[in-house]
């Protein structure tokens, strides 16, 4: 059940239907109790509306922006020392170098005359060419794709974590 005060606050706040508003207006006009209460609440409402906001310190905005700058200035440093990224890049380049070296060595054709025969017979260069087959290349590409997916997943996880924070 609504009290007089509750009804009048609803009326002042404009939370009534048109019919209710009409009925309350009529009540205020003819009922002394309603009129006095209405005037009292209206005065209070005006006072509440006129309340003053507090002022923060002069350096407030500056402090906020500085806080943001300080926080974001640390980000690139964090990224460079992320061990997973460094490991990923290292593995990628080491593997690439090994494969390239193996491929190059397998294709070297040394002139037989410039090296003594006994040296040639003692040094046996493995035939890397036979290792660079279609499945090996596919495996290498597959590994690269996996590595790229792993790095992308790490990037997304970090972004998600930042959003949660």
């Amino acid at each position, binding site marked *: 059940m609504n009290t007089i005060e509750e009804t009048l606050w609803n009326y002042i706040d404009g*939370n009534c239907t048109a019919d209710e508003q009409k009925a309350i207006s009529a009540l205020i006009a003819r009922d002394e109790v309603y009129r006095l209460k209405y005037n009292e609440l209206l005065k209070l409402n005006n006072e509440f509306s006129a309340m003053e906001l*507090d002022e923060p310190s002069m350096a407030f*905005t500056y402090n906020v922006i500085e806080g943001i700058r300080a926080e974001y200035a640390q980000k690139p440093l964090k990224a460079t020392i992320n061990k997973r990224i460094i490991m990923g890049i290292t593995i990628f380049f080491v593997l690439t170098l090994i494969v390239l070296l193996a491929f190059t060595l397998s294709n070297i054709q040394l002139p037989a005359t410039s090296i003594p025969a006994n040296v040639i017979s003692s040094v046996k260069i493995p035939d890397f060419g036979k290792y660079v087959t279609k499945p090996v290349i596919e495996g290498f590409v597959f590994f690269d794709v996996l590595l790229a997916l792993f790095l992308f997943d790490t990037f997304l996880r970090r972004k998600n974590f930042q959003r949660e924070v």
Partner: protein
Amino acid sequence: MQSKLSDIELIEQTLAGNQQAYADLVKRHQRFVFTLAMRFAKGREDAEEIAQDCFIKAYRSLASFQGQSKFSTWLYSIVYTTAMTFLRKKRVDTDSIDDENTFIQVESQVSSYDINNAENKSRSFYLTQAIAQLLPDDAAIITMFYKGEQSLEEIGHALGMEANTVKVKLFRARQRLKEKLERNLKHEAKELI
């Protein structure tokens, strides 16, 4: 001079990397956010810390603001959660934040505050004094309703309540504020006699 751009335009510029746009956004909302923080912290230093923390959190999550509600409503929800976390941390020193007795201390401090300064004895001074004596939730709802240009639905959204719950809480908060205001004024009249 404050920017005439809308909140949404300032947010778009901030997301594009313009930090000055965010500084304008802070300037626009800082007084209200600080006042709201004061309703919970009851001390300028703590309130400023809460308010600054809110703006930094808002900057971090600005990309997730989808514009479905007003920026101010979204920002006030951050103020509310940050202030509640702050109060929870402060609980170590106090018995309970919902305990009226906790605020008796504040009340007595405010009552004796600058009592002889005639300039301060305006209705506005007594209103500020009475608001400081309310429970944080009551003070926040009244401030958001009257100074934050927020509807009951928006206040509900910011505080995680139903609009009807906010309506009931607002009614009770106004009643309590009225009682405190009357009591303070009566007390003052007695002192003058």
